[in-house]
């Protein structure tokens, strides 16, 4: 589903975030990206979602070469990818359900159908009682669950999560990871960047370790 071939990403200023990375991830896999902060985990995820473009090498997702993808095609690629951010990136000018419905609005769904689907996902992440609340009033864990609900509402085949439990205490983190396991079991491909070792051991799955932009283990 995802393949990296000799991918290097150098940011303006010369910092090399990823060096000659080669990696293959199959459909339906659960992959953890580990490594110290600044090792290139986020960059790797950004390359998959075409938020960044590689300096050299080839990134391909679902058979599409991301570097060759035109600006116009990128939105359609992203609609098949659910993104979970460490800082949630929620919109505070609208309530919980409006946040979740946004991807469906963008994709041009019928409003009533969109609300129905959004409500179902919100129920799944346990926020149904808060659907009319403003995200500001939610706790950190709830905000993260809301972010996950938004990533999942369009039923993407691929979910990318960047430090999804980074700011959460152990209880919340376990909750979130349990949720990810459920998605993995229904066939979603998951790539999760984290340094939460407990979560990794609890869920199992493959681990890809990064060190200073180089993949040191789990590449194959």
């Amino acid at each position, binding site marked *: 589903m995802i393949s990296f071939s000799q991918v290097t990403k150098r940011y*303006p200023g010369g910092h090399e975030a990823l060096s000659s990375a080669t990696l293959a991830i199959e459909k339906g896999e659960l992959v953890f990206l580990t490594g110290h902060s600044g090792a290139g985990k986020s960059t790797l995820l950004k390359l998959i979602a075409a938020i960044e*473009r590689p300096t050299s090498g080839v990134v391909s997702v679902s058979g599409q070469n991301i570097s060759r993808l035109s*600006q116009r095609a990128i*939105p359609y690629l*992203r609609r098949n*990818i659910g993104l979970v951010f460490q800082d949630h*990136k929620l*919109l505070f000018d609208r309530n919980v359900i409006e946040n979740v419905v946004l991807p469906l609005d*963008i994709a041009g769904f019928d*409003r009533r159908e969109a609300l129905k689907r959004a409500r179902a996902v919100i129920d799944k992440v346990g926020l149904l009682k808060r659907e009319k609340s403003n995200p500001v009033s939610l706790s950190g864990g709830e905000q993260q669950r809301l972010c996950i609900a938004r990533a999942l509402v369009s039923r993407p085949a691929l979910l990318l999560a960047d430090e999804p439990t980074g700011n959460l205490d152990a209880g919340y983190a376990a909750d979130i990871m349990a949720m990810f396991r459920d998605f993995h079991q229904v066939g979603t491909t998951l790539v999760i960047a984290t340094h939460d070792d407990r979560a990794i051991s609890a869920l199992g799955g493959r681990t890809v370790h990064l060190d200073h932009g180089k993949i040191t283990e789990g590449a194959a």
Partner: protein
Amino acid sequence: MKHWLRHQKHALTTALRRLFSQPVVTLLTALAMGVAISLPSALYLMLGNLNRLAGDLPAQPEISLFLAADVTTVQKGLIAARLKQTDIAQARYTPKQQALTALSASQDLADITAGLSENPLPDAWVVRPQASTPEALRHLAGELGKLPGVAETQLDSQWIERLQAALAIGRTGVWLLGGLFAIALMAISSNAIRARVLTRRDEIHVSRLIGATNRYIRRPFLYLGALQGLLGGLAAGGVLALAGAMLRAPVAHLSSLYGANFQLLPPSGTEIAIVLAITTLTGWLGAWIAVTRTLHQTSAPR
């Protein structure tokens, strides 16, 4: 198609919500646009009214023939015969005695005419020719002027021609001014929309991350610009209506002093529709420029 309509509807409701979420900004922008567009519109209306005023005056030009003081009866007869020809529609003779009587009848001048030892006024013909083109008129005036016994001819259509020429300049001015103010309008709209785009940076950023196309992001702002422009046009209408209401009485007074019954003509439905269409379009264009620029600046992948 259904998809497209749904997107349009969504964009329109979003735009309306954003418009009313900042009512003061909306109002001020509409006023700025309204005042800007009301200037060329007012000039246009003024010219239209002046043009009508010119049209109300005897459209058929007249040539006045003033006879020499020493004109002979034979010469008078010849002139009268010439004026019976077919190229003359109508000719009216005013003997000098009659002209003096008419002058004396006018109150203010009675004293002056009473003090005159002899009648200084000439005998005169007022001629209405068949022809109406300026060249033909000038030609005829020249020919009549050469008749023996005619001291001077005067083509009365001259000032109307001059007015028409002035109005033509005015009309060109309206287009120039209109064009300039349309650019100003676009700038106002562009600025207003840019400010709104900047306050929604986060939303735009997030929308992009979850698969929004540039078109999806741009659409509500375009509607916003168009609506803002429409409001500006309506504001201009308000400004003009107010100005018209204030000017009505003074204009009526002035025209009554001239013994005329002249009233300000309001713009036609078509003219109002055109102004609204132009402001809406410029609002849309301004928004397009603002959003496209910002989208390029914040374009995601590096």
